[in-house]
Structures are given as structure tokens and as C-alpha cells.
């Protein structure tokens, strides 16, 4: 099957020449997946760009209805979780598995806080009748554009939240495997590769925050 690492040697599967080549292939593979993710969110961002241009007054009104404090808080939480994830990867690279474990648990906690705040925001949207569909409350000149704005708001933040939930589940598995010692000093690539995914989800939010909450505020 695969080489079991000799003491002090990094694990790599048998098809690779050495650990460096293995690391390169794994990183490249993850980036190819992330390209497909960029294009996936790209379609939604393209739709947002077109409708923002066509219904700019309605979109400005929509961004005024979002809670900028919660949006800001979540941005800080998510960037902080990216830092703890980066620190977890660093610990794993140095073979400090306890540090990696600690930072991954912090990352999971911060991710959960983000999702909790998102749930609070979604609840308010449901209560105020801002969910597109037959019960959409706003009437007036901008109601059609507003419904488009909220469709895109739920599509974009919803897909982002789905990525966070999937990320949190994978992170729990990785934390479990690290605690059991299945991921260890000689085999730590899952932590590094998961880090790439988590940072990507952070980048999506870095664009969502100004586009949905900030534009049209002045």
C-alpha cells in the first residue's frame, strides 16, 4: 500500500518519489478544487454585479436594512478563525500536535460563533418578512429590486454558510483523528489542506461583507 514512515521521516504514498513531491501534488490538487469553487461563487457574484447595476437604488436600500454591527463582528470572527487555522497549520508543520489541536478547536469555535450570528440575522429577516416569496413584505417602487437583492443575499450568504458547515464537520473529523494520533508529526497534510479550504471560505466572506452590507451606505 504505502510507505510507513521511518522515524523522523514524513509519510508519503507509494506513487510519489519523495515527501516533497507528495506535498506539491496534494497542494496542487486542492488548488484545482478551489478554482472550481471560485467559478461556482463567481456565477453568483456575476448575477449580483448585473442586478446591482440594473437595480442600484433598490440594492442600496437593501444594504441599509442589514445589521452592519453583526456583519462587522462576523468579519472579525472569521478573519480571527483564519489566523487560528494558519497557526494550527504552523504547529502541525513543526510537529507540535497539541498546539495544532488547540488552534483547530479555537477555529471550530469561531466558525460556530459566525454561524450562530448568521442564524440570528436570518431569524430577523424571516420575522421582518424579508425572505423572497409570497410573504415578501416590502411594497413600493423598489419592491421587485429588493426581492432580487434578498434572493442574492440568501443565495450568497446561504452558500457561504453551507461551506462553513461542511468545513466545520470536516474540521471535527480532523480534530478527532489528530486527538487519536492518526494525524501526527509524520502525517499532517489533512490539516494543511483543510487550512486552504478554510481560508478560501474566509476570502468569499471578505467580498460578501462590503458587497452586501457596505455599498450604498453613504
Amino acid at each position, binding site marked *: 500500500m504505502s510507505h510507513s514512515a521511518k522515524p523522523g521521516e514524513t509519510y508519503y504514498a507509494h506513487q510519489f518519489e519523495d515527501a516533497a513531491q507528495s506535498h506539491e501534488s496534494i497542494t496542487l490538487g486542492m488548488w484545482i478544487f478551489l478554482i472550481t469553487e471560485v467559478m461556482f461563487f463567481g456565477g453568483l457574484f456575476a448575477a449580483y454585479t448585473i442586478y446591482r447595476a440594473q437595480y442600484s437604488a433598490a440594492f442600496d436600500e437593501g444594504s441599509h436594512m442589514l445589521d452592519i454591527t453583526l456583519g462587522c463582528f462576523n468579519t472579525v470572527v472569521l478573519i480571527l478563525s483564519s489566523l487560528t487555522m494558519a497557526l494550527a497549520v504552523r504547529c502541525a508543520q513543526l510537529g507540535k500536535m497539541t498546539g495544532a489541536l488547540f488552534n483547530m478547536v479555537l477555529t471550530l469555535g469561531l466558525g460556530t460563533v459566525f454561524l450562530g450570528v448568521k442564524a440570528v440575522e436570518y431569524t430577523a429577516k424571516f420575522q421582518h418578512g424579508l425572505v423572497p416569496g409570497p410573504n415578501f413584505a416590502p411594497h413600493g417602487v423598489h419592491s421587485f429590486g429588493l426581492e432580487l437583492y434578498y434572493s442574492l443575499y440568501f443565495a450568497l450568504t446561504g452558500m457561504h454558510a453551507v461551506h462553513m458547515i461542511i468545513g466545520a464537520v470536516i474540521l471535527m473529523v480532523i480534530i478527532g483523528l489528530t486527538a487519536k494520533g492518526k494525524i501526527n508529526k509524520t502525517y499532517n497534510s489533512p490539516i494543511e489542506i483543510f487550512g486552504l479550504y478554510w481560508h478560501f471560505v474566509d476570502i468569499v466572506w471578505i467580498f460578501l461583507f462590503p458587497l452586501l452590507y457596505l455599498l450604498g451606505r*453613504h
Partner: protein
Amino acid sequence: MSGHVVPLRIYFGIFAALMLLTAATVWAAFQDFGILNTVVALGIAILKATLVILYFMHVRYSSGLVRISAVIGFVFLVLLIGYVAADVASRGWMPAPAPIQSAPLH
């Protein structure tokens, strides 16, 4: 080998820069720059994303192949949004051709 180990001060420095840029983008949102508001907001977001990609995602320390892969996704994203926007913006520049009249059926 498991990649380049980035010094701690770089991670904390990047985190501080990301926090400052977040504050800057919130401040800028309440100023009236006219059309430039969108440019400033997107510019700051692109700068933040670049910092995350280069340092948190280690692309600065990665091989050429990984770097090209990281860039190419965003190149195609620009193509996607650019061509869709160009299509929508240029509709109506030229009149649509008149529908083809079919010959009477007898």
C-alpha cells in the same frame, strides 16, 4: 518536507493588516466618494484577499505550478464577470434583426 514554515510575526502582522483594512472599508463606506465608493470597497477586498492568499495560504512560498493555479481561477472569474457585464451593457447598441417572414402556406 511539509512546506515553508512562516514566522509567527508575519501571521500576526497579516492579521493586524486585515483588521485595519476591515476598519478602513467600514469607514470608507460612510464617506461619499460617488462612483469611487464601489472601487474603494472592491479594492480593499481584493487587497485583503491577496494577503490571505499569499501568506495564510502560503502561495508566496509555493512552487510556480501552485502559484499559476491560484492565479488562473481569478483570471477566469474576471473573464466570466467581464463578458457577462459587456453583454448586458451592450444590448440595445444595435437593433435586433427583424423576424424572418415565412412564406404563406398555400
